């Protein structure tokens, strides 16, 4: 039996069917991500687990206990919100002690736990500051500390990094991962950013329109998309229709095919390597993206994108003719 | 279980009771009463309204009230427009002093305001006496105890209100727009007629409705200056219920309904135009 089980969860807002019979198991100790575009239902599922929303039907089991109709305060779940939601009239310390005081723990115990959490999020020295005087990143660290100080069964993170600028985000991603491991937490993380999901997760659940489109570890999700939505959302797949594939390869295809842009081989001279389709194309456009060059190439009347590592020696100019090769196994049928 | 879950609803009881007992029911009662014949017997009649619109005394009250409310609002708006524009164009320290004064004098209204005008321009007012001593006709014979005097007082309390309401609207005018107009070959007049005023229009209309409602309902200054000797809707309304003359509650209710009608129109206009403002920010 899994640690957390969602069984046939449905959720309606009026006539709006936002969760459509979700079944999902989460194992103890995993860092699980709910990934998807905004409005796909990922946050709603998280809030159902938190108890901040009621499911329309279905059951939620946490640690062998049915918590579907429990109040949030009785679920022993910690949560970090997108907008920090720190209590502005309380200092960092008071924010962390809030829940512990409600549990009527002895003062010494509260003191110790607050201190430990502050150390863990590296905010020593900020104990007596008010949230308004902290930066966004620091505020989110406090929120994280507040989420773990109660020693919850599960830690929920609802897009905690989306309001934070790119550089700080990386360091917070690392902090969250480390704390997750160090405390042996079970964490459920919601994000719309596929890179973030790849970096952080043990398991990714890709949401689309109220259903889970695909589940798996980051490598599988990245290399083996099962649907065109998955292929379109993860990475920058070329998604080609059967007729386009026919033009490209001269062979009949059934259904759409996804091709990762970095799997194309480009060369000035004919490519002789084995199991691959060989074609000729013309460079239409070139964009520099840091260490990667992205080419737009017209191959047999089909436009494809190909990524190459930046090596100035082998840079193609717009209008150049190139030989293109595509390995058979890199054409993922959807 | 079901009952226990809904106990929180008790929290809205005091508020609802207040609104029902002292807001909704009195208004509805007044509306119903305005259609009842005078003297207290039951029945439906339009006589009260017919009387208001046909008797010279009350026609006068409606005309005076509308006239003074519209005119004081227009004058107040024009002065406020230039005041707010001047603030917008920024004059550092003076601007701050001006804002403080606006906030300060917005508290100066009603009886004190009327009295201040009495000591200035009343029968033995300071300026009246000066006018007499030095032969300044305009001051010596200033018609304070008339609708003209009232207009002067109304304009006074409209200005700070209007300016305070318009200043935020002016803030929404960006310097870049002026620069854009200039780059496209327009001058200041082009800017104000083609961009500035159209952008401000919702705020101007909204402010106008607030001013109109404010003036229409104003009672204290008129009463302090002229007692019941001026034909204005609030004065005519009040005297049907309080005071020495014969009380006519049904007829008075009809006056109240007429006033509420004008107020609702003003507020309706204001609500119609303000959401646009909100959306822009």
């Amino acid at each position: 039996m899994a640690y957390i089980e969602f069984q046939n969860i449905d959720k309606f807002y009026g006539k709006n069917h936002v969760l459509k019979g979700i079944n999902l198991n989460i194992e103890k100790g995993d860092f699980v991500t709910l990934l998807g575009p905004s409005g796909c239902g990922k946050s709603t599922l998280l809030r159902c687990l938190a108890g901040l929303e009621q499911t329309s039907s279905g059951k939620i089991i946490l640690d062998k206990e049915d918590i579907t109709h429990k109040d949030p305060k009785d679920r022993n779940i910690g949560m970090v919100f997108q907008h920090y939601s720190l209590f502005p009239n309380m200092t960092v310390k008071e924010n962390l002690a809030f829940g512990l005081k409600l549990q009527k723990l002895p003062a010494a115990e509260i003191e110790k736990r607050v201190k430990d959490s502050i150390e863990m999020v590296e905010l020593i020295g900020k104990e007596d500051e008010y949230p308004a005087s902290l930066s966004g990143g620091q505020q989110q660290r406090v929120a994280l500390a507040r989420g773990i100080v109660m020693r919850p069964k599960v830690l929920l993170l609802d897009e905690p990094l989306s309001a934070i600028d790119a550089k700080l985000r990386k360091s917070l991603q690392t902090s969250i991962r480390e704390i997750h491991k160090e405390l042996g937490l079970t964490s459920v993380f919601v994000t719309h950013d596929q890179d973030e999901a790849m970096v952080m997760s043990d398991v990714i659940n890709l949401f689309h329109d109220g259903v889970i489109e695909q589940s798996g570890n980051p490598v599988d999700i990245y290399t083996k998309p099962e649907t065109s939505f998955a292929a379109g959302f993860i990475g920058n797949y070329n998604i080609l229709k059967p007729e386009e594939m026919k033009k490209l390869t001269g062979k009949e295809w059934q259904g759409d095919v996804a091709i990762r842009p970095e799997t194309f081989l480009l060369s000035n001279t004919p490519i002789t390597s084995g199991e691959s389709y060989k074609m000729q194309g013309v460079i239409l456009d070139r964009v520099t993206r840091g260490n990667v060059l992205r080419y737009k190439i017209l191959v047999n009347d089909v436009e494809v994108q190909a990524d190459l590592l930046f090596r100035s020696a082998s840079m193609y100019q717009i209008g150049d003719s190139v030989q293109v090769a595509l390995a058979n196994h890199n054409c993922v049928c959807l | 279980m079901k009952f226990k879950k809904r106990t929180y609803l008790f929290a809205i009881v005091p508020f609802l009771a207040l609104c029902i007992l002292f807001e909704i029911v009195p208004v509805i009662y007044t509306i119903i009463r305005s259609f009842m014949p005078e003297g207290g017997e039951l029945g439906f009649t339009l006589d009260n309204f017919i009387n208001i619109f046909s008797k010279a005394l009350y026609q006068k009250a409606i005309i005076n009230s509308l006239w003074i409310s519209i005119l004081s609002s227009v004058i107040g708006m024009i002065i406020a427009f230039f005041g707010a524009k001047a603030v917008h164009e920024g004059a550092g320290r003076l601007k701050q002093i001006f804002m403080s004064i606006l906030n300060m004098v917005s508290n100066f209204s009603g009886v004190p305001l009327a009295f201040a005008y009495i000591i200035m321009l009343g029968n033995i007012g300071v300026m009246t006496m000066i006018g007499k001593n030095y032969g300044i006709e305009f001051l010596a014979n200033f018609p304070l105890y008339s609708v003209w005097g009232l207009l002067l007082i109304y304009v006074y309390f409209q200005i700070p209100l209007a300016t305070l309401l318009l200043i935020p609207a002016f803030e929404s005018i960006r310097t870049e727009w002026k620069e854009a107009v200039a780059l496209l070959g327009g001058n200041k007049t082009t800017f104000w007629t083609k961009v500035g005023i159209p952008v401000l229009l919702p705020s101007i209309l909204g402010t106008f409705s607030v001013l109109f409602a404010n003036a229409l309902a104003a009672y204290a200054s008129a009463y302090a200056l002229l007692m019941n000797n001026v034909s204005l809707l609030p004065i005519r309304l009040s005297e049907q219920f309080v005071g020495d003359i014969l009380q006519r509650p049904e007829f008075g209710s009809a006056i109240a309904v007429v006033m509420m009608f004008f107020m609702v129109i003003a507020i309706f206009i204001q609500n119609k135009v303000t959401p646009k403002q909100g959306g822009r920010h």
Partner: protein
Amino acid sequence: MEKKKHIGSKAIILLVIIYLMLPLVMTLVYSLFKEWIDVVPTGFSIAAYAELFGDSAFWMAIGRTIIISVLPIFLCTVFVLLTMYVIVVYHPEWDRFMQILCTIPYAIQGVILPICVLSLYTSAPKPFSDRMVMLVATYMVVILPYIYQGIKNNLTGVGAGRLIEAAQMLGASKLFAFFRVVIPNIMSGVTVSVMLAMAIVFGDFVIINTLAGGHFTTAQMYMYDVMKKSGQRTCAVIVVLFVVTLLISGGAFLLQGRQGKRKERG
């Protein structure tokens, strides 16, 4: 060109300032001199103020004004907070109705509401026909829009819904979360609207005159009575009351400014 524009706007501001300050200044000067029938007033004297402060009726009137402003404002604030608890926590969709109920007072401002209340309740059974009950309730309705708007803006500003969720996740009940977490955070903001409401009730003449007549002499009624007796003294009353009103609304203004700054910093 730039300079000319500035002079223009300065001149306009100065003119408006003079127009607005004139009645105030004249009232102040009038209260301080025995005679003023030519350009320069004569006979400086603070007798009017001495007389005023020595008059126990004046202090009684001030006391009544304080009672009649504090009670409705306190009750109104509590009523609105209780209702907002239900709206924020359980039924956000009800806010539309609350907003309508709190806008209606604009449409019945001035003399309309007290007249409606009076005409309904003069001959009603006991608690309602009591003038004090009518007075307190009417003031509560009059200040409702300001108190509601103040509380609502502050609830939105502080993110009440989110704070309640955060508190719940830490083991607090909804009730505790609203009254012990949210309310302390909006209190200083609510104080601003409370003070503005105070200034409104303090300056009221219409309602007190309609509902209480001469039976409950507040500061405004006292002023109205003195008006028929002595010009100097009336001016003194006006000045004193105006200063009190200024202190109240100035306090609110300062408080608001301080809050604005604190938010900017955060």
